[in-house]
């Protein structure tokens, strides 16, 4: 079983600060592997533990990706194929780059996160599947079985679930309910630096990036707090609080 896992580097959102006056984010923070990418990778590792095979981490990003991809290798990917001169973040160009890398090899299964924690467009699985002309299963909260050239997945549709079977190769995008990603131990981290990383440029892949849209503004949402002060005896205040909660929630 040869599995490709498309992973994404994102800013460490926990460290992003917002300028109070302008609401602009300060993006001078380290990058990390997106959480849902780690869910996808964890699922790939579980499949490899059962069926054997190889996991290749695929990614496109900034030069910093050379460092970030080590997280995927430390978690358990056997090798990586990456593009590090990709500074655009539009879903269509990212899907094109990932697809071109994927075309360089043949995979039984392509896994990825349902969306990424930064812009959460949720388009990647469908765009990659469409570009590669492969079947796709999205919103997967459980991979029930992988055998005999087929995969059976449970799709979480909020109000109901679907059990879907597809032929392999197939593109599968997972939700965060699917597993708890492992945290790499020191031994895994030390091994990661020795694993092969194939580094392509956009030129190698014959891709010229063009924008189909422009980001006009990227600001944190304005939050107006009501800041209501309630005064009086405890019982009276409690009653008023209960009334407000009933009205607002």
């Amino acid at each position, binding site marked *: 079983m040869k599995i490709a896992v498309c992973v994404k580097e994102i800013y460490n959102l926990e460290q992003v600060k917002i300028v109070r006056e302008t609401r602009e984010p300060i993006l001078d923070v380290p990058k990390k592997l997106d959480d849902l990418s780690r869910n996808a990778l964890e699922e790939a590792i579980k499949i490899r533990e059962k069926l054997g095979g190889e996991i290749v981490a695929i990614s496109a990003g900034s030069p910093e990706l050379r460092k970030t991809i080590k*997280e995927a290798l430390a978690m358990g990917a056997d090798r990586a194929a990456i593009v590090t001169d990709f500074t655009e973040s539009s879903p269509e160009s990212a899907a094109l780059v990932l697809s071109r890398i994927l075309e360089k090899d043949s995979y039984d299964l392509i896994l990825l996160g349902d969306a990424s924690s930064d812009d959460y467009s949720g388009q990647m699985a469908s765009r990659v599947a469409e570009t590669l002309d492969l079947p796709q299963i999205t919103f997967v909260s459980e991979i029930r079985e992988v055998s005999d050239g087929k995969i059976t997945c449970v799709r979480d549709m909020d109000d109901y679930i679907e059990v879907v079977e597809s032929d392999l190769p197939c593109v599968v995008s997972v939700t965060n309910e699917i597993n708890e990603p492992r*945290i790499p131990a020191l031994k895994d981290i030390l091994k990661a630096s020795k694993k092969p990383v194939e580094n392509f440029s956009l030129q190698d892949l014959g891709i010229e990036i063009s924008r189909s849209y422009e980001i006009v503004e990227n600001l944190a949402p304005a939050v107006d707090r009501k800041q209501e002060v309630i005064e009086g005896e405890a019982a009276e205040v409690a009653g008023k609080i209960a009334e407000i909660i009933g009205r607002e929630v």
Partner: protein
Amino acid sequence: MSVIDFPKNTVLTFSEEEELFRESVREFCQRHIAPNWVEVDKRSEQNPMDIPVDIIKKMADQGLFCIPCSEEYGGQGGSYTMATIAMEEIAYADPSVALAVYALLNTGWPFALELFGTEEACQEIIPEVAAGRAFFGIASTEPQGGSDVAGLKTRAEKKGDVYILNGEKTFISGVGEVQKLEWGGGWFTLARTGGEGHRGLSAFALLARKNGELSDGWDPTIYEDIGRHGLTTGGFRLTDFEVDSKYLIGEENKGFYHVMEGFNLARIVVAAATIGASRWLLEQAVEWFRTRKLFGRNISSFQGVSFKFADMYARWEASRYFVYRASRLADKIYIEKDPSYKPLDLNVPVALAKNYGPETCVDLAEEVMKWYGAYAYTKEAPIFRAWLGPFSYVIGAEGAQNIMRLIIARDIIGRDYLK
């Protein structure tokens, strides 16, 4: 989200692997330790033998013990700086420092065993410690005192292939753990095989329990500590306790030197734990400053508060430099085996780290409690746990503070001028 925006640093820098390791330890700790440390401290205060075995097992699975030990002994094959990073992060998640101290003892002393012990002892003990099935710490203090190591009285008589030990050890970490963990464990210990003074001492790996069976002649007592409850402290009496000669560490009558090298290694990670706890305390302070108002102003708008905070922050940064300077030096000596550096080169850097780290942490905890006011004097606010735990290292665990000062003064001024 980090509460404090720490200034960028181009002097104290870490490799990509070290950064990744720090992130992984931090994530592990936030998942398994930070949500539980207060409960662990409370439970073990009620019953010292309520040892957090489940967390110890998870830490072992994550590879947080025996970090610099060789992979052939089940260690992690990392550097001493990696161990230092891990201890800083564990203590940040558990500022009572109990779990960090468990991890650091089971990193520093198995590594000292690997440096000086027999192949057989290493093969037997280190894999069990790394897997969280055994404890291996240090037992040198005796009822007459801990600082006068050269004066200790426990005797070891050689009879054929075994040494017979008689004596008593006090204020020893892990007396409960060796009884409770699956395999057991023991300590890097010292006993007198020769005449008076430090040249008559030999080091042994003393196993109070192995393969789940208690050894004869080992009579333990568990103490009730005032803090750091998640790790037991106790003492034990040795009565005709047999130690196989394979457990002799290094040469007979050279044990003092081996244990001093072990202390240097352990003190680095002790200091690392206190800078981790201090980071937690600094964040508690800053969070409080950002919300607490008095006389219609932020309390940190009073210079009596903010200037003191600035002083404590400076001491914390200085402690951190001392700690990582010592760990990098330990890597040169013991991991890279660079012949330009000798074990004695560690004395002053380690003494600086061990002296400054714990004192900064305890002084900071006291200040944070004062900034918090009466709330900090209740058990609802956990700050006092980050005061009482690290205080054990100001009292003298792993080397008394004035012994650290003595080492610094002796090596900087010159031994002859201190007589």
